[in-house]
């Protein structure tokens, strides 16, 4: 076995951190899409990731669909779940306040988790890696091909979303709803549809995160909550509502965890990430890239 150098160790931590961080970033983007349109922090976001992974396993492994067919089908199914979430749990709420919405999404996530437990049981499931499991070596560090898929999909999502929000009228309409729902409806935008769309979009992104991470870390019914918390951390670290912030927040969180585990004390790696998060908040109360106004005047 070859000797491992400190530099290659650092490289490995970085690669691992960025991979895990990419998943956090995807969850965080999902948070932001919904938050921007509705000001809701959707704590069921992690469940989309879980559903993405498990439905993909079902379609690809159990039902035997080819990867290219199972992938879009999974996204569609999870998107439907996102729409149901909006229709059944969020839009019926008549007097929404931040707290009731938080609890509604928590309630919904409990239900989704419960249903998943009934469908798939409590065991973890595996998904074959998209392009095999032969690791690539880079500067003494090891990269699983699947890591590249994770990073690649993050980039694809970012590009697609940028195009969507910058270049399409629907994207603009969604930003308009986020800013001023009344004014948006006065130009003919159906705000409810936009909210539904935001849930669909973020569910779809969650599904992608779930599909791409399952070959690395397996997936089971109760994985969602932890991912939701990490994603929420990433959102807040980057600044609520900011997409670049979400990506930055996710990647930073993942990297701190990885370096913290490798260099300092692996038992406290989550704590390091959170301490950094707290430090950032205490210095910049609106996150790294957030604007101060967003956080103002939110009452519970």
């Amino acid at each position: 076995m070859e000797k491992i150098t400190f530099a290659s160790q650092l490289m490995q931590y970085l690669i691992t951190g960025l991979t895990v961080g990419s998943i956090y970033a995807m969850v965080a983007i999902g948070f932001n899409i919904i938050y921007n349109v509705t000001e809701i922090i959707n704590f069921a976001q992690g469940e989309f990731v879980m559903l993405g992974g498990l439905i993909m396993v079902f379609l690809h492994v159990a039902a035997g669909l080819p990867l290219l067919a199972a992938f879009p089908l999974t996204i569609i199914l999870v998107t439907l779940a996102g729409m149901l979430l909006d229709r059944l749990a969020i839009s019926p709420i008549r007097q929404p306040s931040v707290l009731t919405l938080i609890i509604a999404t928590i309630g919904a996530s409990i239900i989704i988790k419960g249903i998943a437990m009934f469908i798939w049981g409590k065991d973890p499931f595996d998904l074959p890696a998209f392009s095999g499991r032969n690791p690539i070596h880079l500067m003494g560090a090891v990269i699983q091909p699947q890591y590249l898929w994770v990073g690649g999909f993050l980039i694809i999502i970012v590009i697609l979303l940028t195009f969507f929000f910058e270049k399409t009228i629907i994207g603009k309409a969604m930003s308009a709803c986020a800013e001023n729902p009344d004014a948006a409806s006065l130009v003919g935008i159906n705000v409810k549809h936009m909210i539904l769309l935001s849930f669909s979009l973020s569910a779809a992104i969650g599904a992608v995160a779930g599909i791409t991470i399952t070959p690395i870390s397996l997936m089971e019914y109760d994985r969602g909550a932890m991912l939701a918390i990490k994603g929420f951390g990433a959102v807040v670290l980057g600044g609520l509502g900011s997409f670049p912030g979400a990506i930055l927040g996710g990647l930073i969180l993942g990297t701190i965890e990885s370096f913290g585990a490798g260099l300092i004390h692996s038992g406290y790696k989550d704590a390091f990430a959170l301490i950094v998060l707290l430090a950032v908040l205490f210095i910049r109360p609106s996150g790294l890239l957030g604007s101060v106004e967003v956080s103002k005047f939110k009452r519970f």
Partner: protein
Amino acid sequence: MLRIGKLPITFFALFIIVFPWIARVIPGIGHYPDLLIFAGIYCLMTMGLSLLLGYTGQISLGQAAFYGIGAYVSAILTTTYGLNPWLCMIIGMIVAAIVAIMVGVPALKLRGHYLAMATLAFGIIVFIIFNEEVEWTGGPDGMSGIPGLSVFGFNFDTTEKYYYLVWFFVYAAFIFTINVIQSRSGRALRAIHASEAASNAMGIDVSRFKIMVFVYSAILASLAGSLYAHRLNFINPTTFDLFFSIKLLIMIALGGMHDIWGAIIGAFLITFLSFEWLHFFGEFEVIVYGVILLLIIIFLPHGLAGIPHIVKGWLRR
């Protein structure tokens, strides 16, 4: 809603006093006082949280940490150092208060979701410490052999004795909290909730009040933690995890967070739902729990304590 009548308070006290006797008579609920001990422990926390969240408008997702601090201070000082449990309880409250000040001063400058995340992070960090500092806390295996409580040779060793002890504390805290709500301080808190700018203009030191309430809720949570530890004679970290903080939030949201009664109703409801009533659903329990949460949030946005209001509305029509 704001004035809290004498009658319900007395009625409530009577109910608490006679309940163990009732429980003995009615078949099938003989173990309810046992549950009510935990409901009481949760009440201590929800009352603090109600004051913090419902009245002052500051969210905390880290209350479980203070609960844990109380429990662990009591556990460590009694088992490792053999101190008197009552003294440990007080030390626990002091420690919780100090931690609350240290966390609260920077954190309570944050707003909304940022405050939620900050308190959540604090809660997780404390949980990780409970889990990792095996030398002190016993790690995930927890600590056993925590002594029970006694005073001048009188042991609170049976369910009923402990029931009355816990509810004595709960009731005292309840009266204290009501008094605060109905006084200058309580008005200041509600003023902060309504408008921080105007409160400042009225000479209210907003940040000081926020911290004061945060500390108060931490002290109550710590007391609850100590009572829990001495009751169960055993603690482990999972009792004090993030999900418990969320559960507390759920309690006051379901009970009705703008009303101190809501805190109590919520604690009762969740205690009985999660420890007792949902057993009938077997493995469906989780789903039913989620559905109940959603239904209450959708149909009773002001929680169960808002029901009288709705009923009154119907009667008026």
